[in-house]
């Protein structure tokens, strides 16, 4: 994690993520709006029951890619603080793999940047998700 004096807070951990900590970290007296995206493990995908997920990260590179995304967001919108936390390991239905929190003076920047960050994270950050079903398991997006 980057020091809290930085406006960027990046974390990859196998511990549960904390929504309260994340939203409090991005709060600032100059901020009027905070947008938070919380990913949660869904109980089904394409109609199949999901039992649990497992997330694996290429830790060093994933941290760098997440930091790049945060910096790119600061370059595009007037933001106060950006937080990106991702969990690894086995997660049950309802648990939280990812939290993104963005504060800004105005809500438009907070919403737009938060959406940009999760969309870009899903495209570029080297983290992989395995879905466990009753009759097998599969690495998501691996095969056509």
């Amino acid at each position, binding site marked *: 994690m980057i020091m809290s004096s930085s406006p960027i807070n990046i974390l990859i951990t196998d511990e549960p993520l904390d929504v309260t900590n994340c939203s409090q970290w991005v709060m600032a007296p100059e901020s009027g709006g905070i947008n938070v995206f919380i990913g949660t493990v869904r109980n089904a995908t394409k109609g199949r029951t999901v039992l649990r997920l497992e997330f*694996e990260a*290429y830790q060093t*590179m994933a941290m760098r890619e997440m930091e790049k995304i945060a910096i790119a967001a600061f370059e595009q919108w007037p933001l106060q603080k950006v937080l990106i936390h*991702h969990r690894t390991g086995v997660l049950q239905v309802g648990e939280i793999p990812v939290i993104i929190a963005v504060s800004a003076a105005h809500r438009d920047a907070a919403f737009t940047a938060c959406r940009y960050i999760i969309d870009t*994270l899903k495209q570029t950050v*080297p983290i992989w998700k395995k879905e466990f079903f009753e009759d097998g398991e599969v*690495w998501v*997006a*691996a095969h056509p």
Partner: protein
Amino acid sequence: MTITVLAFGVAKDIFNAPSIQLELVNDATVMSLKYTLEQQYPRLKQLSSYLIAINNEYALPEDYIHQRDEVAIIPPVSGG
């Protein structure tokens, strides 16, 4: 030269290991690395796509690989 290739996600399953050793000519390109990998692990060709990272950065096909670089195979990501 011998390089270590780190593997994640489905690539780890294909290698059946978190990393493999690979013999490459000096200053091989990413393209030639992928060719060599696919000769030894044909199941890689069944992936929807995969990229190579050198020293924690996505690499281009024409980039060179050097002796002590950290090389990793990056199957389609699915975090978030």
